[in-house]
């Protein structure tokens, strides 16, 4: 006969195994739902600062050009927040009625994280990707326009990665691969070839 004490031990062990199994499954799901890069927490930063000249690389579907445009915007000091504001300003421009490269309604950027001076992660919202037009050139123009705009803001930037709602996606809208890091120098070379 097994003592009562032993029965408690067995019951406790069985429960522990199940709890651990569920925890393991939970961890696995969580790991799958995140990109393989840690997403740092957004830092609190002043919402606005003095107005500055910023450069946006604006895409034009008609001739597939990517041209620098200077605009003035109030800019905070925090680098991540600066990144978010330039990309938000760029997207706002694409959402205008006279946009040379229209994006879908509701498209926006949640955050831009600078992991180190050379690596930036751009976390876009679901509407940005879900409503994006599908095509090699249209998707390429969007991605290159964001990468080059960030490069203009952060000259030391060498690679950029995209997340949609905090998660890695294979492609922006069926074509351009955004599952990994994009090399900023190669993007600059390739967009030079564009126009």
């Amino acid at each position: 006969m097994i003592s009562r004490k032993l029965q408690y031990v067995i019951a406790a062990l069985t429960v522990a195994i199940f709890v651990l199994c569920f925890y393991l499954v939970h961890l696995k799901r969580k790991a799958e739902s995140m990109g393989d890069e840690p997403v740092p927490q957004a830092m609190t930063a002043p919402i606005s600062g003095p107005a500055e000249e910023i450069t946006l690389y604006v895409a034009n579907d008609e001739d597939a050009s990517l041209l620098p445009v200077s605009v003035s915007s109030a800019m905070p000091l925090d680098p991540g927040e600066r990144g978010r504001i330039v990309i938000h300003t760029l997207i706002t421009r694409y959402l205008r009625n006279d946009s040379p490269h229209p994006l879908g309604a509701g498209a926006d950027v949640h955050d831009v994280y600078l992991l180190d001076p050379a690596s930036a992660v751009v976390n876009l919202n679901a509407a940005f990707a879900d409503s994006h037009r599908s095509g090699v050139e249209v998707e390429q123009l969007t991605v290159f326009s964001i990468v080059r705009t960030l490069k203009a803001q952060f000259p030391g930037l060498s690679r950029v990665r995209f997340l949609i709602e905090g998660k890695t996606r294979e492609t922006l809208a069926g074509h351009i691969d955004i599952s990994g890091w994009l090399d900023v120098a190669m993007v600059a070379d390739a967009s030079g070839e564009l126009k």
Partner: protein
Amino acid sequence: MLRAESIFVRVATLLLFLLAVGLAAETRRVVVYAPKTNYQLDILVRDGVDYLGLTDLLEPLGHVESRLEDNKLKLSFNGGEAEFQDGKRQYRVRANARLDLAANFLLVNGRGYVPVVSVTQLLSRIAVQPAEFHDGSCRLFIGSTKISYSAELRHDPSRLVLSFPAPVKPSTLVEKGRVHLLFHREPVVSSGADKVSYGDSFLLSTSFAEIPGGAEFIATVQQPATVSIGDGGRTVIISPATQPPSAPGTVPAPTASPAAQPHSPVPRPRPFVILDAAHGGSETGSVFSPTLIEKEINLMLARQLQKELESRGISVVLTRVADNPLTGDQRAIAANTSHSSLYIAIHSSASGHGVRVYTSMVPALQPRQTRRSFLPWELAQSPHLDQSRIAASAIAAECAYRGLPVRSSAAPLRPLNNVTIAAVAVEVAPLGASADELAAPEFQQRIAATLATSIASLRGKLGAAQ
């Protein structure tokens, strides 16, 4: 010590039991092939009888309404009426026709269940559709959905040609002495004789059997064999691996165990170019209008280009000839094993005008790396980037010469990074304002002729896959 061992034994036994219960509880399913749709239904077992949910069965076939009155289920399907009673075999259909189920009707949580074996009778009465249930494979065929094949042994060289009235895409497994074709997607059924002896020097015999959820065709062969699929999936050819095996214009079907195929001493005829109509299946690419979908335009363009190339004496293979989905990796593997010299992915777009030519955005080979260095899959294109750029410039030059707007650039576009031959992607956009132009024969012919001329100019300039 003893106590710890006994704990382990008990815990292990408990876990094994739970695992066994889990496995035993794995639901069996019936695969339903209907004229417009295929679906699967879970089997519910009660008192040793297999049951199917009545509304789950009928809903994909038409308009179903059901209402519960006490222990009766009244059902209307496409205007016809039927009435079932919980725990009773007898049911009523339309005007007072009374019929019997093979076992009692079941009501579980307000949902009606009928015995699987009675489903054919039920469908013929309620849905007025002939139906056939195959017990061995748990497949239900509604209407004339079954696909039966014909098999013919042809000679010089010996090869078995299987012809199907509709496209099929079997999984193939080639092992020593046997070739297996597994049909899990299509409703393939026996064509009469399930076992046929040929006694040929290549083909000894064939057999056909239904297996759970599908069917399996096995050819017993006396020589190493290969499988190729042609005519848009309507023809499957099993031929000796040492003979030219392919149906014209197709890539060999990917096999589950390529390593099991012995090395063939005689090389296959080498195509010069592999054309990859991008997208396919549920992955549609761009949708220009309800009737104009990128995956279809891409395939039309690929076919037109194939014709133009073949008329110039250039041999071509296609990654897909039907509306089937392929992953980027599958496309790259098809290119890398095709022994071609050039891979061209074909896309179409309603944005902008003319032709865009893309090469991989992969880093060029570092000076210390050699072509023979081991490279990760993501960098497989690196050693071939120069050749890809030669191909891209040739295409761009011909487009410009013929007055087509053209641009070329590098792009992070799958599967270009993973291809180990010269590789480019082409995106074609209309010249005018309307996307309808993409489907116009004159437009497609103009694009195809331009691409074909530039590809022809690349002969002798590109190396083949190693």
